[in-house]
């Protein structure tokens, strides 16, 4: 076989392999991903699939009982809260009013979170929050 033809075959093989791998990547990512929802979306749809629930911890709702943690998550604009039960690590910045993401399913009106799935946003953000949110105003002493 002449070298030019050989190179062409090699190129075609390499390209097809790349296309195959890329399709596998695309396919698995769409099937393995979890969609993000806010409490109002979940309340409206009532769907029992697995979602990333995002929103703010409603102040005064955090309760600890034995192994698990219960709190309400509200939409970022403060409306429509949903109760959440969670077990596992609670990140340090977790507090009332903080933005969190938690993965789980809605069962009987309660969002049951997967173990260790709670993520709390990093505190570098709080500066902006303080500016927007009058509850977090920094007092000049």
């Amino acid at each position, binding site marked *: 076989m002449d070298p030019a033809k050989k190179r062409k075959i090699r190129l075609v093989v390499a390209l097809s392999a790349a296309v195959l791998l890329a399709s596998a990547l695309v396919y698995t*990512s769409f099937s393995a*991903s979890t969609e*993000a929802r806010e409490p109002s979306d979940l309340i409206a749809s009532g769907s029992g699939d697995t979602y*990333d629930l995002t929103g703010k911890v409603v102040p005064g709702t955090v309760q600890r009982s034995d192994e698990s943690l219960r709190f309400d998550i509200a939409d970022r604009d403060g409306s429509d809260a949903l109760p959440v039960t969670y077990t596992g690590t*609670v990140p340090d910045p977790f507090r009332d009013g903080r933005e969190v993401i938690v993965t789980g399913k809605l069962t009987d009106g309660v969002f049951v979170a997967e173990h260790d799935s*709670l993520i709390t*946003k990093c505190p570098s953000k709080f500066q902006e929050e303080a500016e927007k949110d009058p509850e977090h105003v920094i007092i*000049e002493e």
Partner: protein
Amino acid sequence: MIALGSATLAAALLVALFAGGAAVYGALSRDRRWVDASRRAVYALAALLTTAVVLLESAFLRDDFSFEVVAEHSSTTTPTFYKLTAMWSSQEGSLLLWGWVLSLAASAVLYLTRRRHRELAPWATGVLMVVGSFFIGLMIFAAPPFQELRPAPAEGAGLTPLLRNPYMVIHPPMLYSGYVLLSIPFAFMIAALITRRVDASWIRVTRRFALAAWLFLGLGLLLGSRWSYEELGWGGYWGWDPVENAALMPWLVTTAFIHSVMVQERRGMLKVWNVSLIAMAFLLALLGTFLVRSGILQSIHAFGASTVGGPLLVLIAILAVGSAALIVSRLADLRPERRIESALSREAIFLVNNLLLVGLAAVIFWGTFFPLIAEFFTGTRSSLGGPWFDRYVTPIGVALVLFTGIGPLLAWGRLSAEAAKGLLLWPSMAAGAAAVVLAFSTDAADSPWALFLFAFAAFTLVALAQEFWRAGIARRALTGEALPAAMAGAIARNRRRYGGYIVHAGIAILLVGIAASSSFQTNRDLRLDVGESAQVGDYEVTYERLAADPQSERVAFIATLDVRRDGEQFALLAPARNYYPTQNPMAGPIGRYFEGEATSEIGLRSGASEDFWAAFQPDLSVLDDDIARGNRQLADLPPDAQGIAILALAERYAQNPPPATFRVIVNPLVMWLWIGALVSLAGALLALWPSAEARRRARAAYAARVGREVRARA
């Protein structure tokens, strides 16, 4: 001072624009005076930005809260150490850091090339100054670090407790320096394409800068993952967080680049690939800065909406389109001088390792940006978790370990099957032996990928040891030295090669640490009363007691965990949780001490075979009633009296605490991750260090050139 800072930045912008313009004009008109002027302007730019950094840092040190940045990120109670680092916890300060490091790196490369590469340097100056002007422009128009706050508050907001960590001092500047240093090879690549001087000279000029960028990015990643390992809820040393990924991608592409440029230097191949790689690496670095600063993806590093995201994206788009167009227009100049002769050659292996590294970066890129991609196609945001990344990254990582061992064995060009057999014999036997021993004597076979990785790591380490051995034997035959001295001599004569091999050995060790700790980790949540014990793997854990440590800036609760193995004490750990007061008036005078930020200090006992890691989360809800009463009754008392009340409250809690939650992790071989990383960094330093030989050669070449020029003038 603020006016002076703003004026410095304005002057810096003018100087940067002049430097870029003069360099390009000088290159076009072939007038060296303009080029010399542009180089001196870059030095001036470095001086101006250094002044700006000094002004801002001194404002932090002096607690000058008339600077908005200082008021928002520091306070009089912030320890001095953290006042210095508060600069880069702000967006404005990080931009200044970016620009400053860029000006220093540009000055360094232009100083080194002041008498060489006269065709490339001016165009590279032009590119660097476009990037530099952009960042200085951001500091003037979008995120000014010298913004006055009027009236100046008496106290600042302080640095967030979570960032009050020694890693904060060094982790961000290392990453930023890595990002910025990538601009140097990028700029010289563009210059090479513009001037059609696409031989390996642009690579040689910037090789050290690319290596230094790789080293700094690697150090930044290492420090970041160590920090994350010591924090609770950050997902251990790696969590596939978008911002972590953003730093890993340019590092992977730079790793590929460092390898493939050797193929171009030696064999004149892969030219298009190399220019594309460095363009990708630099664009990914800018994208990393963009991701950190824009808050576009959900991340634990969420820095919130910022004003610089849009302009940064525009810069990235312009540079991406510009580089792609330039590369396409120069395709004819970039034709390879040779073809790959054999699959058993170093260039073939380098090509495979490049494909693996770039493939890895592509997978991570897709996974990181998937939320945006999914939103574009389906209208809803979806995210991919760690298991999805692991599915792709694990096999690629396992293959890469094998190639870190095979690459150094093979010669350029082609290797006879006979020679290959001889070289592969010992490493293959080591791999086989490791696989058999581990499969039968440990439960490593539970995780086939991990078992593969251990076997391949054994292959690689033996292959590299064999290379050092062969070098020593060859030199001994030549010089008659004793073997250790011969080996050291061989290494000293070719630091670039053997430094590289040490990096490879380090990476193999590091991946062993990652594979073992991620596959065989024991992870438990314990809820214990004081005096109660629990069994975790081979360890018996007892919650001995609780102590309170109230101080002015925080109240800490420290648990004592007694960890025993086979009845003998293994460690006495003291995981703690610190509560920092909040300024929020809603929390009340007593409540504000308990409802602010909280941070965990983990208890850690590291060992060569495994780490025992423990974090502590006390349950303060029993204090709620007391705090509420305190808020009502003690509101009018002076702060001193409130302080006494808080002390009493903390002491009482510590004497009779309710059950607390502990997160306990037994992490096998994780120490080898850090050891491997340090070995790699040492290897990189060895490769970077200029050898006496190289210095002598450089001096001789310079003397010869001066001689020629003097003769030419005379």
